[in-house]
């Protein structure tokens, strides 16, 4: 491994590319995500030595090796804990977690929930390919019910986890979704995540051509994508599909419905507002399309955040720097001491 000199002047994509050979399978969606992340990093404007990528285990876990930043490829599911420790000690870094569906939602589910409810200042990128890739093709927590895999020859019995619903329920102040091959949409979401002061959760739908090819073809393939993507743009009515021939309205039960665009007048079409404090609106979006194959993409929720422990790093460092030997001596002695044999120097 070599390290490169710090870039001077304007940052470029190359400043974030490590010299490690990428070892994902040919055609893996991870390549597109890596390119997108390396592409937006210069826009974010933080020099690479102040960026840290903390990853878990799985194909996505290798991400940290390919970014020429600081990075740690940690333990299965535990990246949020390492990242939490990192931001407990430092406030001058941009910290990113890269995780997969098994890593974040199965073995690391507890840590994900707590990182979000604490609002730890980290960006969490969850590469969801709905399968275990690195262990060669077992059902994952996001695999659909009935999914036939090596570990579920008769089809999975389980309902899949909805990553965004989980994140929003855990109190995420920022929750978004993008597709690996949607360059522009992914870059927009990554930039928005980078700007968020607290925990920013991004689900990235990622194709695993080896073990679960086509899991997201309905939002990746050009012809299909236009039918299934529901682009979420702030303050815009949720009309989508070919020439806006579909629309999202609020049903009588409070949930969201997809109806033919012609049936919905402008007043009844839901206008997207990610800043609503009440998580109900974002939660409803997280459920939208689960049964129909439609996929809302973009920022579902972005509300003001008070990041975990804001200000504490500086405060504690300042406190520590004032403790001299005399103060430490007083602390060690405590309020009640007695002297044996003529004083401490005797």
């Amino acid at each position: 491994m070599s390290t490169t000199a710090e870039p001077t002047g304007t940052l470029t994509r190359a400043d974030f590319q490590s010299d490690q050979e990428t070892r994902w399978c040919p055609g893996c969606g991870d390549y597109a995500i890596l390119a997108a992340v390396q592409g937006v990093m210069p826009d974010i404007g933080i020099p690479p030595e102040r960026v840290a990528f903390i990853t878990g285990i799985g194909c996505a876990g290798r991400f940290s090796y390919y970014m020429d930043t600081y990075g740690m490829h940690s333990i299965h599911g535990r990246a949020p804990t390492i990242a939490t420790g990192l931001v407990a000690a430092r406030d001058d870094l941009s910290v990113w977690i890269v995780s997969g569906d098994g890593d974040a939602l199965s073995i690391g589910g507890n840590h994900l929930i707590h990182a979000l409810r604490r609002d730890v200042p980290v960006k969490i990128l969850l590469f969801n390919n709905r399968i275990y890739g690195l262990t060669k093709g077992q059902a994952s927590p996001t695999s659909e019910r009935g999914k036939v895999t090596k570990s579920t020859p008769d089809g999975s019995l389980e309902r899949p986890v909805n990553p965004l619903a989980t994140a929003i329920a855990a109190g995420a102040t920022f929750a978004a979704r993008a597709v690996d091959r949607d360059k522009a949409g992914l870059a927009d979401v990554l930039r928005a995540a980078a700007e968020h002061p607290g925990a920013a959760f991004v689900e990235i739908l990622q194709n695993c051509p080896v073990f679960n090819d086509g899991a997201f073809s309905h939002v990746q393939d050009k012809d299909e994508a236009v039918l299934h993507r529901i682009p979420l743009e702030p303050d815009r009515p949720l009309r989508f599909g070919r020439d806006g021939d579909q629309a999202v309205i609020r049903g009588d039960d409070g949930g969201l419905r997809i109806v033919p665009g012609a049936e919905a007048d402008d007043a009844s079409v839901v206008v997207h507002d990610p800043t609503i404090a009440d998580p109900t609106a974002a939660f409803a979006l997280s459920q939208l399309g689960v049964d129909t194959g439609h996929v809302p993409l973009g920022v579902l929720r972005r509300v003001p955040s008070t990041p975990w422990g804001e200000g504490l790093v500086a405060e504690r460092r300042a406190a520590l720097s004032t403790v001299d030997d005399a103060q430490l001596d007083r602390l060690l002695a405590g309020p009640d001491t007695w002297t044996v044999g003529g004083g401490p120097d005797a």
Partner: protein
Amino acid sequence: MATVTHEQHAAVEERERVIVRFAGDSGDGMQLAGARFTDATAASGNDLATLPNFPAEIRAPAGTTAGVSSFQIHFAARDIATPGDTPDVLVAMNPAALRVNVPQLERGARIIVNEEAFTRRALQKAGYDDNPLDDGTLDPFELTRVPMSSLVSRALEDVEGATSRQAQKARNLFALGVVAWLYDRPTAVIERWIDQKFAADDVVRRGNRAAFSAGWAFGETSELIDVRVRVAPATDVPPGEYRNANGTTAMALGLVAASVRSGLPLVFSAYPITPASDLLHQLAPRAAQGVRTVQAEDEIAAAGIALGASYAGALGVTATSGPGLDLKAEAIGLAVMLELPLVVIDVQRAGPSTGMPTKTEQSDLLQALYGRHGEAPLPVLAASNPGDCFDTVYEAARIAIERRTPVIVLSDLFLSNSSAPWRVPRAADLAPIDPAFAPPREPDDPPFLPYERDDRGVRPWAIPGTPGLRHRVGGIEKQERTGAISYDGANHARMVAARAAKVAGVDVPPTALDHDDGADILVIGWGSSEGALIAGVRRVRQRGHAVARAHLRHLHPLPPDLGDVLRRYRRVVLPEMNSGQLARVLRAEYLVDVRTHACLEGRPLQAAEIERVILEEIA
């Protein structure tokens, strides 16, 4: 103190050492009474050692033997080593406390009871058919019956606003007053504590002061106790400034000291678990010293957070007890691989599984040494007395920081709760700790090699944010020097050896031997059994036998001369609160026939049993 007009009736007897046990229901405040008595005893200049003992349940059924809580203190005019085996005085606040503790008393011991607590119903709950105060079963003892309930109620009548419930809660302070009078403890320390503790509620404050004073006055005036005992200040301890501290306090201070002396902020992350939680409680209010505590979502996260903080360039520490150590194994393994500092404190308790969470044991040793997959050696240190918790954790932090390695510190429940006078260390005397972060690099410098080792086998600690040092670390095996991912077998073998050699190279002083001329028996121990071993060996020596004694802080790597030391003796005896874990290690390491004395009863080893074990080997 209340003015007393009666004549001083009691004779005064000098004693070299005394053991007092306060016992009652877990709601009776016995730990508080014991702790306050300990403060006053420390202020008297006695040497002392304490042993709190309480049930696992917060409120076990009131009045039952399962709910009995006790606090024992041994104090003396000379250097003592243990909280003592059998009490000279037992304070029993209810029948259950009496029933549980009487079997441990020797003939002639004094028992002070709250006689009004011996109601029919209370006797039944404790499993007594007849009242032991009346049926002669206590004849071998000096029984003092005190109507504590009514005396406390009467004392509180003068306190405006005091309720009967408050009177009930203040009985422990009355009992404390009686015992404080009996041993002529300074009252100011206790009264000051009451004033501070209850400053917010003047009625409670005055009620507690009244109960304590009434207890003292009762001793002075009642004539029920005719001998007062005086224990002179201890003079055979090394000179210096002393304070009282239990293992938890000393350990918390050791961590703060390591942070101050290294300049690294302390990030302490833990998940609530008995008995380790007290460390979290003691460190959480230390913001003024720069301490950041994080209560994690689980034990795994606590270890991950500490390791993440170390990666960031802080002093990352996590603490737990047995079950939590199981869960921290993967983070410890990663720290071995990353070669980053991490201090893991295990306050051992009786296991396996939940075991006996409020009882002590030393049974996590093999887990600390070996409990990780793969070849994952790391330094393991054990503290041997409350004050030693400071030195041990300080040294552990120094090793972790300077050698870039996780270090496990073993304490145990007994040590963490037990208190003793502690010679206060001076900041200036503490060994310096140098984090020696890798310095930034210029564009023209040769490439940074994150796994290049220095002459101690130690790699650079290159913290995020440092210009010119960007690199990636992870759990995958590294190429030597470069740190790039490597699946090359020969490289792996070299890396395994390099990590082991680095740990083996930690500086460990030679075995400290307390040797008599002509001794052919060595008693060796580790951890909290030190006091019992010192006291047991002392007794054997008083009988005229020659014995040698050694105590280990460094369990990995072991002292360099230990094999030679062990082989010098005809017989090596190793008492430990497990089934022989260290003995197994020493046998394997040195091929010496180390004999185990195992104690697995959830209690500390006792001087008398060590004496017996040694005498058996001599015979």
